[in-house]
């Protein structure tokens, strides 16, 4: 089955800090699962038939898989740097393909129109040239040297700056974004999008951040990211076709879409097709 390749991946299934609240019932790729803590406080994930699934806890979240993951979950070395604050933004459900949610996260061109006056503003709509590659050793998609003018790039930014970005896709439904850190110009802020596929056209999105920002309150940091993501949500729910097309069909990508093109190519190469449309309709 084409989905097998994705069955063996790790997916976020809940916040570790919320395990104490009791059993959390959710789903993974169409299968109902329960996330809970055992007597030692360790995370346990089971299917409703009682099958015990692989578990690990990283980046504040519980991760699991319906299959047998052949490799460890990706790491984010920057997240271990001392002095960072970790922001658990919380879950938001979106009626869209999990792959669509990741692809939208990789796009810069929509900033002035969807995140107006925050991540972009007219007339600064140009996406300058940037570099995209599929790194063979890491087996990840990377976009680097991405630059964009932003009126309010982060909660800690005062006034407009040209922000530099790097995007990384280390797993089919996860993306890590490195972004200019206004209070510490030599470091990158880390902003992630962890997507839990509930079905091919339904997902739970768990944004998470590791920031250098000692000024802003935790609630403000959460609300900043929720604002951005909820501006995307209504767009994501209206994208047609609902599944991510891996066959170009009627779509014509432009240079600004290079990251998306590489992401789709990488998905296709690995048979990561849960949530994808294989033949243009």
């Amino acid at each position: 089955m084409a989905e097998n390749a994705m069955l063996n991946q790790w997916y976020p299934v809940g916040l570790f800090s919320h395990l104490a609240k009791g059993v959390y019932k959710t789903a993974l790729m169409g299968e109902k699962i329960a996330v809970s803590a055992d007597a030692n406080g360790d995370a346990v994930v089971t299917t409703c038939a009682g099958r015990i699934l692989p578990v690990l806890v990283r980046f504040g979240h519980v991760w699991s898989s319906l299959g047998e993951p052949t490799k460890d979950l990706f790491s984010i070395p920057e997240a271990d740097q001392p002095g960072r604050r970790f922001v658990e933004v919380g879950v938001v459900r979106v009626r869209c393909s999990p792959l669509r949610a990741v692809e939208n996260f990789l796009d810069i061109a929509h900033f002035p129109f969807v995140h107006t006056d925050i991540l972009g503003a007219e007339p600064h709509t140009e996406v300058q040239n940037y570099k995209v590659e599929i790194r063979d050793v890491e087996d990840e998609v990377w976009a680097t040297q991405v630059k964009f003018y932003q009126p309010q790039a982060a909660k800690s930014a005062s006034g407009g700056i040209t922000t530099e970005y790097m995007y990384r896709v280390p797993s089919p439904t996860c993306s890590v974004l490195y972004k200019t850190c206004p209070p510490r110009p030599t470091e990158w802020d880390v902003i992630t999008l962890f997507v839990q596929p509930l079905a091919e056209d339904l997902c739970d999105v768990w944004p998470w951040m590791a920031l250098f920002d000692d000024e802003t309150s935790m609630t403000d940091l959460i609300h900043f990211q929720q604002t951005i993501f909820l501006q995307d949500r209504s767009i994501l729910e209206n994208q047609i076709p609902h599944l991510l097309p891996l066959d170009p069909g009627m779509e014509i990508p432009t240079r600004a879409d290079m990251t998306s093109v590489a992401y789709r190519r990488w998905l296709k190469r690995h048979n990561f097709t849960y949530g994808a449309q294989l033949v243009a309709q």
Partner: protein
Amino acid sequence: MKLYDYILSPSCYKVRLMAALTGIPLKIRPVDFHPGGEHRKAELLALNPAGSIPILEDGDLVLTESSAMLVYLSMKTAPKWLGDGTAEQAARVQQWLSFSHRLTANLGGARLHEMLHRPGDIAVLQAHGIAALRELEAGLVEQGLRGKSFLASDRPTIADIACFPYVALAPDGGVLLDPYPAIRLWSRAIRALDGFIEMPGIHRLHELKPDPSIAAGEE
């Protein structure tokens, strides 16, 4: 004036929008509603035992109902937002303020269910939401026949601000607005008001571009 606020709450947005339209500065105190559940913790429960937000504080006055906040902000600086003072308009305003609670319960409930995992019977919430939208659509059509573009008057009142957010965000809860032309025009009229502010899920109007210039003789 201090508003205990959540950026994604349509009820909080009513108050932020009203304050923006009437030029009243608010001191915003963000509440970690999701995922933190701060509105159910001791500090806020002491202010509002109902455990809901928004909460508006002004000196000794503590308000926990958004409709009361709209009245308060209007009376302070812009009484025209309450209607023209006739019995009929005052009653129409009250009619829609009460009606707006149904929108909170059904369209708001559907949105919380679909977006933030809150419990509820989604089919029932959506069905009641659609019934309320049809009632609103009929009300706006009737107002249109009277030559009036807004719910209670020929100018916007707090009734429009009370109903607008949950209606505009209905698609977040899986309820489409496509079948309601009067609601769409009304929503456009509200978004075109001077001082209008947006919230996530409610987009601003794109600036109207000038008409294309077509030289004589060109087709």
